[in-house]
């Protein structure tokens, strides 16, 4: 474990160091002269602010969407469903994870494109076509779908741990169902929800494949810019500087999550 931490931290430190170098524009070799130009560009060029904002914003939106979708289902699985229905639902939630990530994203392209299933269905009931293929809306839908199981499972685990006796006690004291959900279940399930949000948020934050496949003209994520700087421009220092942005965002996120007790829920 200590080795793992050491190797991981050493890589992160190396990343940080590279970010303070630059490249020779002619040979694209790394020039080891200390400067903060890369960070200055990221902070001053509005393009990068837009891209960071888009990435973090969509990650937050996907997380909220998944909380709203996952909580009722997880609650039903943990507290209402019979044992049999529960296992069926479990299988249904986990089954998509058996299929490749790419297969599922491509399936969404088939649904959302101009002559896709969505528009075909809309037109067959007389509605105008929805033009959401290759847009940020499409990315929001696909991300929310892809990461949903990662929200359901920790939420379910947290809800499962809420003793029924507490709910009965609340009922005995005169609390109605929504009141006990709000005051008893929700606070106890919160660490699970936060744990799930770490998955949905960080997975969206670091993704670059879905933006390539279902994104449109203005759909670049931090990952896409990092990828093009490493692969196309051979500008590893700039890629390293930009890659520190999600590291910082996640550090803040994880510290907050720890305060909310998310790690005990995992």
């Amino acid at each position, binding site marked *: 474990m200590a080795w793992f931490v050491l190797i991981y931290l050493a890589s992160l430190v190396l990343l940080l160091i590279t970010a303070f170098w630059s490249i020779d524009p002619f040979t694209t070799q790394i020039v080891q002269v200390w400067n903060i130009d890369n960070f200055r560009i990221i902070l001053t060029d509005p393009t990068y602010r837009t891209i960071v904002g888009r990435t973090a914003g969509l990650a937050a939106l996907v997380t909220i969407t998944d909380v709203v979708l996952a909580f009722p289902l997880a609650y039903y699985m943990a507290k209402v469903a019979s044992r049999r229905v529960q296992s069926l639902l479990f299988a249904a939630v986990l089954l998509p994870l058996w299929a490749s990530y790419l297969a599922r994203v491509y399936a969404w392209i088939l649904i959302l494109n*101009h002559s896709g299933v969505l528009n075909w269905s809309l037109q067959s009931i007389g509605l105008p076509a929805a033009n959401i293929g290759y847009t940020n809306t499409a990315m929001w839908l696909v991300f929310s779908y892809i990461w949903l199981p990662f929200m359901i499972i920790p939420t379910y685990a947290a809800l499962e741990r809420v003793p029924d006796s507490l709910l009965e006690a609340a009922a005995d004291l005169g609390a109605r169902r929504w009141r006990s959900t709000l005051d008893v279940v929700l606070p106890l399930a919160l660490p699970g929800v936060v744990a799930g949000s770490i998955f949905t948020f960080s997975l969206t934050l670091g993704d670059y494949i879905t933006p390539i496949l279902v994104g449109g003209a203005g759909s670049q994520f931090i990952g896409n810019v990092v990828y093009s700087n490493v692969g196309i421009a051979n500008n590893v220092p700039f890629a390293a500087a930009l890659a520190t942005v999600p590291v910082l965002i996640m550090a803040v996120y994880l510290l907050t999550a720890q305060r909310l007790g998310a790690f005990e829920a995992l």
Partner: protein
Amino acid sequence: MASTHAGWVRTGCLVATAVLAVTACGSSNTPSGSTLLQPPTAKTAPQTTIGAGEGQLNLVLWDGYADKSWVDPFTAATGCKVNQHPAGSSDEMVSLMKDGGGGNWDMVSASGDADLRLIYSGDVKPMNTALIPDWTNFQTYFQGPPYNTINGVHYGISLQWGPNTLLYNTKKFVNPPTSWSVIYDPANKGLITVPDNPIQIADAALYLSATKPSLGIKDPYELNQTQFNAAVALLKSQQPLIKKYWALATDEISLFQNGDVTVGAAWPYQTIQLKLAGAPVADTIPSEGATGWADTWMLATKATHPNCAYLWTKWVSTPKVQAMQALSFGETPVNTKACAEMEALQPGSCAQYHADAPGSYFNTIKFWKTPIAQCGDGSNTCIPYDQWVSAWTTIKG
């Protein structure tokens, strides 16, 4: 960088024209290529004979560039077993070839946008054209094009080429478009697709060279700051009109097939595939001309199977194999003798792919080359490729 101009005195062409018309050397189709800084491997003398094959050949190539139909006879004749590593992009090729191929790769079928990067990183070394008998049958332009030949030294042997065409839906465009203006026209908002590649800035520059002559753009890959800014501004105004920047040829094919887009920049390959699938499309080279890609077999600096590499280059340069590859991939051979072979395989194909084009035809196509800081006139005012890449990021938003 100015101090390295000593490397200039390499060709007679240059000595004669160093003051006045260095660019004229490139554009008059003499096989002297570009006149630039000396690459790291420039002094590496290429081998003068081809010895016995080493039994293996490791290639980084475009998918389909080593088809069974011409690899099997090659292996049977030379004993060189061909191991392929298809690359997805020029950038992947550049990164695979780092450190001279690292002893893992012998050759790469690099496109013009990658060539100078490979040459100036010292990842590829000069090749001896005397060992490739068919080289003398190549179109004059491709014997020493500026993207693979520097100061008269050949860093590879040209292979095939193709234009970047304007692809359109024939149902939407009843009258075929004749200008690139259709992909900058707000009337086509949300129905346009262009390649997700920084080299696309050159397409905008080419369009501006015709529509805004006051900018004085001569070579779309050698842009000064003003010209570069104008091209970037044009592309930024195009961004809201774009449905999607396509990364893979198959992406563009499905965009056209599903009706998501009706017009875009493409390769002949997409047109052929879409027509085979029955899609109502056609392509054209608009009045402003077109950019184009041209591929070169380059020899890795640390190649461990150089004899097999030369035997392979010799083989793929022969008219028959040139014709087979051209027809299977939808591109044009550089060997002029391939025309007859193409006609034999598929009547009419030689003219269809411009394999019989006269030398002047190649002045209408601006072949990809890596933009570098040094312009053709020797000054260092041109915008290098890393700035093309960061500008491309800001264009896409």
